[in-house]
């Protein structure tokens, strides 16, 4: 079943699909009033081409979006006042927030996860808190954060912090707790001491599990940042999307979706590299 498909074959099919999709899209959004092409009324009804009627913004086709993309990419990092900054700048703001929130979460979650993993008592004592807090949508924390921190930018970072802490905490604790008894016994018979055992045995043994937690966390953080920025406003790709919605620039929204996807992919790949670096095989 899981035979390896040659890269070029998969790539050809992907390209083909993309072409078909883009062509269908382009065709679907052709202006009806432009005369010429006669559209089956049933088909029009199916697509709900209300967009094609006067008064509302038409859905842009791939070619229009491409034109807009070239425009945006010509100078992605311009800053013309607080409300008019390039898409690159906006993404950079979002990345900064994610980096800060995720970094802080890692600083807290990995050592704490270590302690939880090493101490069954701490594990049992903290478990109820973790179990209750973990399923809470990070956005539910937003009002509380805004109220207590009184700064929207820091509140967004806090929301990222709170959403990325759980996978890292749980994975670290699990990874540390499931380090093989054999290796711990080796360390004990070598009188390695707590610090050496933690850094030379437990950490490398648990590293793949910890990095998996980090990978899940960064994915969630990148999902949440868009929503958080829509709420707090000011800067960031989430805010930018909302702003373009208010301006009814649909092409920009589509471009933003694409960018968010690509940046998310890049973040995941980055942690994928880290995972490869710490992986070990028995």
């Amino acid at each position: 079943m899981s035979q390896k498909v040659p890269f070029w074959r998969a790539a050809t099919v992907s390209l083909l699909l993309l072409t078909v999709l883009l062509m269908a899209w382009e065709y679907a959004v052709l202006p009806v009033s432009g005369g010429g092409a006669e559209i089956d009324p049933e088909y029009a009804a199916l697509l709900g081409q209300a967009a094609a009627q006067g008064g509302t913004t038409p859905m842009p086709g791939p070619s229009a979006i491409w034109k807009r993309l070239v425009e945006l990419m010509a100078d992605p990092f311009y800053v013309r006042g607080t409300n008019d900054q390039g898409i690159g700048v906006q993404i950079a703001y979002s990345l900064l927030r994610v980096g800060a929130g995720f970094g802080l979460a890692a600083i807290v979650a990995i050592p704490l996860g270590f302690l939880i993993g090493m101490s069954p008592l701490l594990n049992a004592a903290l478990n109820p808190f973790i179990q209750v807090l973990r399923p809470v949508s990070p956005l539910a924390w937003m009002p509380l954060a805004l109220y207590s921190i009184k700064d929207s930018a820091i509140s967004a970072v806090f929301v990222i912090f709170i959403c990325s802490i759980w996978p890292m905490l749980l994975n670290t604790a699990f990874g540390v707790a499931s380090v093989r008894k054999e290796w711990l016994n080796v360390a004990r018979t070598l009188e390695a001491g707590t610090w050496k055992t933690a850094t030379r045995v437990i950490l490398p043994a648990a590293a793949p599990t910890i990095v998996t937690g980090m990978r899940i966390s960064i994915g969630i953080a990148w999902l949440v940042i868009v929503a958080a920025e829509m709420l707090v406003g000011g800067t960031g790709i989430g805010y930018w999307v909302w702003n373009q919605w208010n301006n009814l620039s649909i092409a920009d929204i589509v471009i933003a979706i694409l960018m968010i996807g690509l940046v998310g992919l890049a973040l995941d790949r980055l942690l994928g590299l880290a995972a490869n670096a710490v992986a070990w095989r028995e």
Partner: protein
Amino acid sequence: MKPYVSVEGIARRYGAMTIFEDVWFGIARGEFACLVGHSGCGKTTILNILAGLESPDEGAVIVDGTEISGPSLDRAVIFQGHALMPWMTAAGNVAFALSCRHRSWSRAQCDAAAREALKRVGLSHAADRKPAELSGGMKQRVGIARALALNPKMLLMDEPFSALDALTRGSLQDEVARLVAETQQTAFMITHDVDEAILLADRILLMSNGPGARIAEVVVNTLPKPRTRANLHHMPGYHALRDHVLDFLITRSKDFDAKAPPAGWSARAVPETRPALPLAAD
């Protein structure tokens, strides 16, 4: 005068269940002792107690005049499942042990000594490979090199060759016999293999079946040294010795009853037999 290692009345109980109790034996300096007994009678537990990884529910183990209270670098353990750290190379595993033994050594010193230790077990060419890239026999060799590199006062081995194929096991047995003889190492080994015990051991401790297992007999191996697998079975007395141990494992181990012991048996002074001597054949 007390022997180098003196096991004094140790017991292991789980609730009302007694795995073994009233176990007494000694190991002289430079002596090779083998513990033979059926699965589940508590051999690994006894080895772990000698290693200091577990403590007995009763009794004590005195090594060199002091009661042991935990693991020590002076008692190196060769684990059944090699217990190498898969994220370190072969040399890295040995160097880690050396860095625990010699805290003041530099990284380069540890590495050089590790390579030297691997050379002694014929693994120079594989020093930079990870355990996953080594065969089972090579992994066990690294485990042996790691233990011997520590220059311990005593070597503890828990069925070190049981996971290996017959050929590899044979060559490793000869190798351990040579290395232990060269260094006059005091050794304690668990095995299921009667020939292995006869090849390596100066004294074979025979354990009765659990629950409530004891050391039922002590067999002194009077076959001359050096013994190799090639000459072992040609030695006069070998068959008598082998039959004696096998008979114990097949029948006497389960018939042994500490409440109605054979004449002359006492837990503190288990009688020694010398079945390989012609006199004992009566």
